[in-house]
């Protein structure tokens, strides 16, 4: 037996043992590194999505304080800036419908800002409007029972505490507003698919509602839960409450100053108009425009649940009770130029009389204070989709909610264009 040979073999065995240990350590280390990279990417994607929300907030703030940079609402003072919210505004074209990709190194975010009043507000929509939407009768009754304060009696297909308390996992009915669209999951008759997929068993006889991607609209496409519209005139001052108590002479004087003819001012100062519908029917066609621009019927400084004629899609406009498809079509056609004041509505074909306006005037607006921001942050293989609601009351932005969008294909569900342009985020 060769002794030197045996030493060589022993050395080889030793080496093999050491290599095996090292290889094991390296494999586990690589795995750990990979999971760490994944975690980092996910955090980066989340941070980028949050940066996207901040960019949207900055865009909205700039729009509210300075108006548009190029055309449309120009000027920096309230006297030259309109209060309307249009699809041609800076905020609306920010992010270019998801096609702009803001890059930071290898990572990026994409964003879209949508007017919150381009949806049907589930906290404010009256029963007549819900009837025009893809709901079942049970869903309508239960939704109304859920948000209305009356505590005990439920509608025939509805549900109050007695029903919810008898569930396997019981709770009380909210009797208040929904905080996000997913609050519907708490309400009898609603499930995940009924919100995010097309509902088939519905009472509405309205024409098929077009959603994003040329399919039928889902509740997620049509509805949201918050959206405020300011009750202001063109110059930003509050509209005049035609029903206000107090000195009638002063009220007449204010109306005349705002551009209403003395005769009409005197006539309106004595009447009682519970709704805008009753008001528009009380004035002649020639006075409609001014009346709509400067008057309101109560003291509420801002209202919820108005649909913005400038930004709402065809399917959302179709939920207004008694609106005809022709009028919807005419409104949508007008959106490329937009209505800068509510009174401009009389320029739309078919809406130039009090009788024609009465069915819809209490459902609509041309201005908005609340915006929905959709954003996707991407880092490596991770992406995070967030939806934020931003309220711009009195010009200062406030994030009302941030929710994580529930699906991985949100850009498709939002109807985004493919990302085509890359804009590096630079320090300024």
């Amino acid at each position, binding site marked *: 037996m060769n002794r030197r040979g045996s030493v060589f073999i022993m050395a080889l065995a*030793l080496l093999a*043992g*050491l290599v095996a*240990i*090292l290889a*094991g*350590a390296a494999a*586990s*280390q690589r795995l*750990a590194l990979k999971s760490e990279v994944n975690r980092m990417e996910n955090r980066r994607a989340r941070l980028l999505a*949050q940066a996207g*929300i901040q960019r949207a907030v900055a865009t909205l703030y700039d729009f509210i304080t300075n108006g548009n940079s190029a055309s449309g609402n120009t000027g920096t003072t309230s006297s030259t800036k309109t209060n309307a919210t249009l699809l041609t505004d800076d905020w609306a074209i920010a992010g270019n419908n998801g096609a702009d990709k803001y890059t930071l190194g290898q990572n990026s975010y994409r964003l879209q800002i949508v007017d919150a009043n381009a949806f049907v507000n589930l906290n404010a929509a009256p029963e007549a409007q819900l009837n025009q939407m893809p709901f079942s009768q049970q869903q309508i009754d239960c939704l109304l029972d859920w948000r209305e304060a009356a505590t005990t009696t439920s509608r025939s297909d509805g549900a109050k505490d007695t029903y919810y308390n008898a*569930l*396997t*996992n019981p*709770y*009380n009915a*909210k009797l*208040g*507003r929904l*905080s*996000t669209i*997913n*609050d*519907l*999951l*708490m309400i*009898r*008759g*609603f*499930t*995940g*698919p009924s*919100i*995010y997929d097309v509902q088939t068993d519905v009472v509405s006889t309205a024409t098929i509602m077009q959603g994003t991607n040329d399919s039928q609209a889902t509740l997620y496409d049509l509805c949201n839960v*918050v959206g405020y519209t300011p009750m202001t005139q063109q110059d930003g001052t509050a509209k005049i409450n035609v029903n206000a108590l107090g000195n009638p002479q002063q009220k007449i004087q204010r109306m005349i100053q705002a551009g209403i003819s003395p005769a009409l001012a005197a006539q309106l100062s004595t009447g009682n108009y519970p709704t805008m519908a009753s008001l528009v029917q009380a004035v002649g066609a020639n006075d409609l425009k001014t009346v709509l621009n400067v008057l309101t019927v109560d003291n509420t400084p801002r209202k919820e649940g108005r649909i913005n004629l400038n930004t709402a899609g065809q399917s959302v406009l179709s939920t207004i009770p008694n609106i005809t498809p022709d009028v919807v079509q005419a409104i949508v056609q007008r959106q490329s130029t937009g209505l800068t004041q509510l009174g401009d509505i009389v320029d739309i074909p078919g809406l130039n009389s009090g009788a024609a306006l009465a069915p819809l005037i209490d459902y609509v607006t041309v201005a908005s204070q609340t915006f929905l921001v959709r954003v996707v942050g991407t880092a490596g293989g991770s992406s995070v989709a967030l*939806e934020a609601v931003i*309220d711009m009351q009195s010009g*200062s932005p*406030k*994030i*009302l*909610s*941030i*929710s*994580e*969008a*529930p*699906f991985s294909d949100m850009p498709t569900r939002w109807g985004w264009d493919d990302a085509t342009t890359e804009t590096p985020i630079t320090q300024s």
Partner: protein
Amino acid sequence: MRRRSRGLTLLELLIAGVIVGFLTAALVRAYAAGATYPERLRQGRDVELSAGSFDEKLSSLIRRATLSPDVNETASFFEGSAGGASGGGTNVGNADTITFTAAGIKPSAAVLTSQDDFETSNQTYGPQGGVQEISISTTPVGQGSASSGLFERKQIPADGDPTQGGNESVMNPNVTSISFEFWDGTQWLTAWDTATMATKRLPAAVRVTYQIQNDDNPHILVVQLPMSDVTTDNPVTQAAG
């Protein structure tokens, strides 16, 4: 020239033996250490990860704090107080408990795609969506069992009673003490209660200081609340008294 081979001296043999002994001992040690190295590496990572993910979990929970735009809503609050949940604005310094409402929590994919009807879904997954009430405290509201640490209590939907309800679980058993402070735009406060505020607002940020067992260093975490509108320019005006 051919040398005559001669044996080794005892001294040489002893020296050789000692050297071989040392080498063998070193080798055995190296092998033993090497064999357990990946395992120790993994354990070390786990400790680091769980510390990091605890911080992350804590801040992501606190970041969710949301108040309803409806000022009259009772099931919408943010409270930080001492000695468990306050439930009535009896806050006195050094908050060791925060209780708040959070909206916008993503329901699980299983719920959103489930073909079950409403009742079956409730049975399988429990209440979904809705505003969540979240409480973080070292004092459990449940049975005063022997367990200690940091507790997390979640209730869906929030019911307007910040003192109880929902499911309580241990979030980190090694936390021995925790305190929360709240930034009101000008200073750190030791208590916060939206129930006693004229206008309900969230603190701009929450500073969390906690102590881990067998670790003398305090851990400090500052969490900014995105849904707060409190800033240095727009601080909370303290109500007189």
